[in-house]
């Protein structure tokens, strides 16, 4: 094999590899890109129907209802302009509290309620999920100092 041909084969192999990787990435991206919406956007109909997305906002004070003795919970997520009720069955994270920011992962029903399969509240106890902070037009809070 001449060096020229060798180089040609190498270039073709690299292109094929990069092409395969790109195709894989596109395929994997297809179903796994999750968009984030706040309640106002959901009310305005921007959120997709029948597709999983993330919704975020503050849990309205006093809105948390449990069906006693079961794992079913229902609470309201708000951005202080609009509110969306969220239904969830499962364990809530340690950092879940009324009056704090959360992100829920799930789908919107025809009735305009959100059915979550996952509820997230991030690690840091002073931490508000950034998407929530921004969608509320609030600066991401730094840890307060006494």
């Amino acid at each position, binding site marked *: 094999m001449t060096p020229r041909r060798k180089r040609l084969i190498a270039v073709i192999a690299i292109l094929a*590899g990069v092409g395969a*990787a790109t195709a*894989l*990435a596109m*395929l*994997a*991206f297809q*179903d*796994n*890109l*999750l*968009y*984030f919406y706040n309640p106002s956007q959901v009310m305005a109909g921007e959120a997709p129907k029948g597709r999983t997305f*993330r919704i975020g906002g503050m849990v309205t004070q006093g809105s948390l209802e*449990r069906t*006693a*003795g*079961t*794992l079913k919970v229902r609470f309201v997520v708000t951005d202080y302009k609009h509110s969306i009720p969220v239904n969830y*069955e*499962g*364990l*809530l994270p*340690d*950092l879940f*509290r009324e009056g704090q920011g959360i992100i829920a992962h799930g789908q919107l029903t025809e009735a305009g309620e959100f059915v979550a399969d996952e509820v997230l509240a991030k*690690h*840091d*106890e002073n*931490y508000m999920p*950034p*998407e929530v*902070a*921004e969608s509320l037009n609030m*600066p*991401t809070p*730094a*840890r*307060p*100092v*006494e």
Partner: protein
Amino acid sequence: MIPELGHFALILALLLSIAQCFFSLNGAARGNAAWMAAGRSAVVGQFVFVALAFGALTWAFVDRDFSVLYVATNSNSQLPLFYRVAAVWGAHEGSLLLWSLCLAGWTLAVAAFSKSLEAPFQSRVLGILGLISIGFQLFMLMTSNPFERLVPRASEGLDLNPLLQDFALAVHPPILYLGYVGFAVAFAFACATLLEGRLDAAWARWTRPWTLAAWLFLTIGIALGSWWAYYELGWGGWWFWDPVENASFMPWLAGTALIHSLAVTEKRGLFKSWTLLLAVSAFSLSLLGTFLVRSGVLISVHAFATDPARGVFILAFLTAVIGGALLLFAWRAPRLKSAAGFEPTSRESFLLFNNAFLVAALGLILLGTLYPLFMDALELGKISVGPPYFELVFLVPMLPLLALLGVGMNAAWKRGFLGSVRNRLYLAGALAVIGSLLVGGAAYGEIRPMTTLGFALALWVMISSLSIPLARLRARQPIPGAVLGMVIAHFGVGLATLGITGVQSFKIEKDVALAVGDGADVAGYDFRLAALRDLRGPNFIAVEADVVVSRDGRPVTTLHPQKRLYDSGGNPMTEAGIEVGAARDLFAALGDDLGQGRWSLRLQYKPLIRYVWLGALLIALGGGIAALDRRYRERATVRAGAASASVAPGSR
């Protein structure tokens, strides 16, 4: 007073870093031995003063000096001594100081243990390490000073995040950083080589043990992080494809590719510029990882807006280091010629595939990690990339990688045929397939295609690894450290694959609502909530449950999951109750009081999960054994011959 001394020591360390960089690089360029010696002395001085600064910050924590802002924000007078020390690296400023200390330590080690290097080359390496030190120390002094005072002093600190009050996470950052920063040595070796414009087998031989050492720390660091997430985050997952995890995993992938590529460069004088590029990439990804995790970019691109100085500095530093190295590479790398060729089924070509698949996985993970940041920065919507993306793009390159691994390890250098090894491999392959069907069918009563493939690959890698020392023993050949290390590390890869396949295929997770006396069935185990009690710990109160686990009426164990409330306030924390076993873990985490006397619990059955971490530890152990191979320590004598003879072909 002590914090001011620490601050002053840090300033002196910066000045010494500048001296180290200036005298080493210029001394090497001019062949001035006195300047090069001055550079080496500066290395020692720099280490001493960074260590003093680190000691001063540690003292402030131990002494509960809440007049220091960083101490007041990250510790509390009730915090036990061990965690007060660990709190030093509990947040941004202190972890930068730890980073700097690790770098100074590695630099000192290079100065002390590479006397056999030619003086100008060693000086260039030290000079480049000095440049990186300057960057970090300037960054600390200008934007993230850990010694900043709080006026008036706080009467009490805010406490260390309770999630971080844990042994594994206390030791996780230092070990991870030793790995991250260790790649700086390979990076500096690569840059020095590019500056000199020549690369021989001896170069690869010097670089290999340093790279292996860094990589083994990174391996342990990642495994510790995963183990911690499993038992402390409370929900039993062991890898989340969280950007923070990806940030440490990407340099690991690059480092893994690098140690394999270095083998080819040393043995056969091939892949020279590729090896250099990987050395640059591994460290660049380490830097990226450090900043991604500790600067708040991941939380939000706009977090930079709250502290623009930090953001601008980080971007400038990353650009200077990565851009500078790549420019140097583009300018000088074409000078390095890899002359020899190789056959398509020789070991070189298998290592080429290894690199291709590792780099493909790395690139796709990088894409998934940074894509949301770009979208956010360009105001194109808020997106997150879900774990299924990462699982798919990681799995697809890993399957052929594992399949080829068994053959590649047994293939000879340069020669194209497998010869007598072929029968050995057929046997290993047959055993792997039979074993996989047996494990899936007999142990779990189910044969699924992906699970069978996973088990088969795991067994294939393990058996073909073991076949190497067995064949050597039979032929009464010695087993050098490098071969033993390779075998152990690859056996670890197989073991980890076995664990990952098992836990991903057969894990069972159940959320249940139980009253005292109620039970639930998980994978044939009966989990029964037997009792609940209140409990007082050193700095928290807790509710503890007794979860009695039995199988077919015979008691197995009693788990004690807790829900803790720390005295310093904040949210409750979940402490899982875990029964560890060779075949499976049983896991119970306590949720909330649901009313009507019921509590929510998450119950889990995790088969083979221990082998994920055990495999990782073997990988690290193998790296350590390989790094201690005798031939790396015989450098001084080898060097004299290597300058003229360059490569000893076909040697193993």
